[in-house]
């Protein structure tokens, strides 16, 4: 069982989707996350183990390499693709409650900002680390964040911005959420965002990279 789980972790880490996928070159003609996940389920490995001992370690390794600038966006996207291919096979077990996710993370790009590459990257990394992710999309208003938080109690919310001009909206939205739901946990991120800005607007966490956010989220449920 451990062998197949570590193979799955490797497929996620290196972005090997399935046997037919040409990427990465060094894993050509090998089975990918798709086949191995199906095979593991057939062999009776639990969906929970596939998630926590296969997919999550793979995502964690790529997240750390990304933070260390050893890989870049394309490698993370391929890893996320491999991960989501595997997750398709696990989804039925999420629905029955057989697999427990760590919690719910709500994410959106703030009002006025239409950029989504960073937000999508983060949402895939968080999902691959065992969280349910609710993606509210781009140009998201404070009310929409607040509604989602009320609907998903104990969820943690992440605000994304790429433009310097929408940092103003990030501040306004963070404060609106805080006013409505004082105990909300708010994370912020995006190219112009800094720890100093996070502190100033009263958000709970900032990370320059997705892995830092994952670590923050995990610390809340540890």
């Amino acid at each position, binding site marked *: 069982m451990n062998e197949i789980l570590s193979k799955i972790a490797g497929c996620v880490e290196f972005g090997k989707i399935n046997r037919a996928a040409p990427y990465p070159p060094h894993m050509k003609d090998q089975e990918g996350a798709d086949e191995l996940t199906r095979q593991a389920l057939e062999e009776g490995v639990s969906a929970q183990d596939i998630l926590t001992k296969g997919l999550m370690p793979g995502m964690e390794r790529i997240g750390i390499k990304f933070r260390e600038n050893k*890989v*870049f*966006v394309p490698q993370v*996207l391929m890893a996320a693709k491999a991960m989501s291919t595997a997750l398709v096979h696990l989804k039925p077990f999420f629905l029955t409650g057989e697999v427990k996710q760590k919690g719910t993370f709500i994410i959106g790009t703030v009002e006025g900002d239409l*950029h*989504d590459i960073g937000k999508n990257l983060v949402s895939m990394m968080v999902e691959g680390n065992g969280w349910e992710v609710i993606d509210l999309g781009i140009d998201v208003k404070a009310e929409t964040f607040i509604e989602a938080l009320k609907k998903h109690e104990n969820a943690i919310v992440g605000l994304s911005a790429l433009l310097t001009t929408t940092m103003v909206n990030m501040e306004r939205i963070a404060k609106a959420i805080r006013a409505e739901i004082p105990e909300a946990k708010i994370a912020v991120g995006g190219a112009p965002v800094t720890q100093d800005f996070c502190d100033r607007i009263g958000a709970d966490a900032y990370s320059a990279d997705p892995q830092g956010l994952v670590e923050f989220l995990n610390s809340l449920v540890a």
Partner: protein
Amino acid sequence: MGKIVDQIMQGRILVSDGAWGTFLQQKGLKAGECPEEWNLSHPDDVYDIAKSYIEAGADMVETNSFGGTCFKLGRYGLGDKVFELNKAAAELSRKAAGNKFVLGSVGPTGKILMMGDVSEDEMYEAFKEQAMGLEAGGADAIMIETMTDLDEARIAIRAAKENTQCEVFCTMTFEKTLSGEFRSMMGISPTDMVNTLVDAGAELIGANCGNGIANMIGIVEEIRKANSAVPVLVHANAGMPVYCDGETHFPETPEEMARLVPELLRAGANIIGGCCGTTPEHIRKVREVLSSTRC
């Protein structure tokens, strides 16, 4: 007037313009508003920006068309106005430029090819439509900029080359990694960039945006190591934005930018201008340094 690259081949160092996006914001563009829509709704403001750079001594001015592909404009419900908005952008800068050059700005689509967001053909068509609009409005060159992915850059260059008579330029955006190398968001180094862009037909390459002018020196040095002949342009940010009391402020002053111009020239840059946060005053100072040194 001839071509921009011909002037460079004759040994001239040229000055480009400064920021557009942050300048439009100063003039009242709100977050969530479409900058390119201003070419029709606020033509006088757009013209003023172009004019202020020409008056500051720039040899060329860009157009207000950075987000002018159907992918970006479509997010504002303006996907059917690509040609019109780009043509208007070029006309406004053309009017301000007089006998100076107009660079038709083309930014990234925001789509990632490797994720299957769009096909190469769809991307090609989007860049083609934009470039043709810019040419129709009077652009001399198509300035493909802020690229991070080589495939997207290559497709944009090809679309502009095959469908316009304009000179075609391309710059990418690099940041310094923890180990001190320069890489784009997609992991491309300046060295990786050079051959692909030149092979695709770019007549000038370089770097824009980023974390300030100091990094640009290292980036130009790396480009020059890979290719000693190709013309190189730099459009540098005025540093990383600092947020304070609801406003963002770019820290590098015109004097700081101008101080590094001689080093950029030594590294091998042929055209120097600014990106986010730079103002007509930055361009005026760059022009002063060039006038007093070698031009």
